[in-house]
């Protein structure tokens, strides 16, 4: 994989100045996180987020190299907030392109980034974004009474922070260490135990995407349009959905 080169500013910049720049950037993105805004400009803002994420991660790395945990975690907070806004912009773009499943995934990404950001700093700006995302969820999507929730047996895996076996290292899942979220990685599924339908899943990306009507017509759950496929309801009602999603959040 080719490493991404990020152009760092030549002049020295204080943490306070970075913070000020970050707030201005977040505000400038937030102004475009609405349905009616131009898709073209929303795409430009997404590209700006990608570029700015590179800069913030460089600052974070510098803080980590100096073993300044507090500052590294502050940069991680910024990383999560930028990612939350980037995901919310993607949600609008996908929605306007009628990719409802993709739009839903970006909404959940945005909500999860916001909740990780809240683990570090809790202030009005984050809570406002959280509330806006929740409102978008209620007004844009139909709501799911049930989600898919698989259960499986897996190996312990490795630690995302130190890459040792997760059994032997000292890191704890969901804790933030030097600007990175601890997760178990490289887990191998040994046996699938069950698939359950639950009201409160771990991963709200695992939705029902298609169902069938009384006459056996397959129905898209987002649009309620018939897909044209005919199903046999004799052995029970048909549902189709996402059973499991591999988490891809940018939390390292």
């Amino acid at each position: 994989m080719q490493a991404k080169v990020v152009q760092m500013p030549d002049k020295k910049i204080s943490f306070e100045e970075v913070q000020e720049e970050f707030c201005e950037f977040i505000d400038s993105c937030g102004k475009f996180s609405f349905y009616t805004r131009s898709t073209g400009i929303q795409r430009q803002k997404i590209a700006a987020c990608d570029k700015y994420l590179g800069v913030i991660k460089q600052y974070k790395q510098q803080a980590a190299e100096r073993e300044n945990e507090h500052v590294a975690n502050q940069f991680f907070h910024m990383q999560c907030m930028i990612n939350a806004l980037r995901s919310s912009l993607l949600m609008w773009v996908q929605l306007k392109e009628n990719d409802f499943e993709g739009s839903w995934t970006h909404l959940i990404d945005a909500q999860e980034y916001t909740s990780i950001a809240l683990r570090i700093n809790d202030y009005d700006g984050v809570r406002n974004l959280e509330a806006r995302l929740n409102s978008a969820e209620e007004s844009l999507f139909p709501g799911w009474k049930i989600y898919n929730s698989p259960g499986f047996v897996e190996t312990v895996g490795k630690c995302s922070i130190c890459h040792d076996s997760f059994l032997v290292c000292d890191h704890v899942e969901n804790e933030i260490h030097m600007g990175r979220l601890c997760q178990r990685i490289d887990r191998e599924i040994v046996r699938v135990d069950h698939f359950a339908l639950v009201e409160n899943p771990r991963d709200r990306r695992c939705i029902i995407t298609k169902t069938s009507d009384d006459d056996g017509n397959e129905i898209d759950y987002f649009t309620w349009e018939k897909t044209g496929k005919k199903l046999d309801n004799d052995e029970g009602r048909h549902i189709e959905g996402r059973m499991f999603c591999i988490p891809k959040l940018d939390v390292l």
Partner: protein
Amino acid sequence: MNQRGNMEITIKEIDAPKLNSASQNIVILPNNYQSAEKHEYHSTTISFYKDTKSKLDIEYLTEPELLIEQRSGDWFGPLLLISSSAISQNPELISITCSVVANYVTEFFKGKDKPIIRLKVVHKETKTSKLTEISYEGDLEGLKNLEESIHKIASKSSSDA
């Protein structure tokens, strides 16, 4: 069964002749501790152990190799074994354990909605080897009721022994 508010506690006596732990610590059991198959622990086990080992005398029954991952939003806690002799050595053990669970879950879900906790505790009467499984399902606040239930089982078991 005891049901109050947003919680439910189920108590049942169990027969597990294969469980020979005589530890004075809290022991994290695999879910299939009654089976001869390879042990499988809840996926919350290792992080919980790492986080709590400085606050509690806690150990695994066997070193975890396989974990059961439930993709539910509820928190499935590790299966905990508490013996009557451990409680008589440290009468605060049950209270400390419940408080450690509450603190761990609060920290784990920081920034998110508080989850439903699903936690099983096995009480072992050391003299008679009688095992009682106490299952808790409810919110964080209801953990106080789990603590009361374990205390009741522990007192009853010791008077029966």
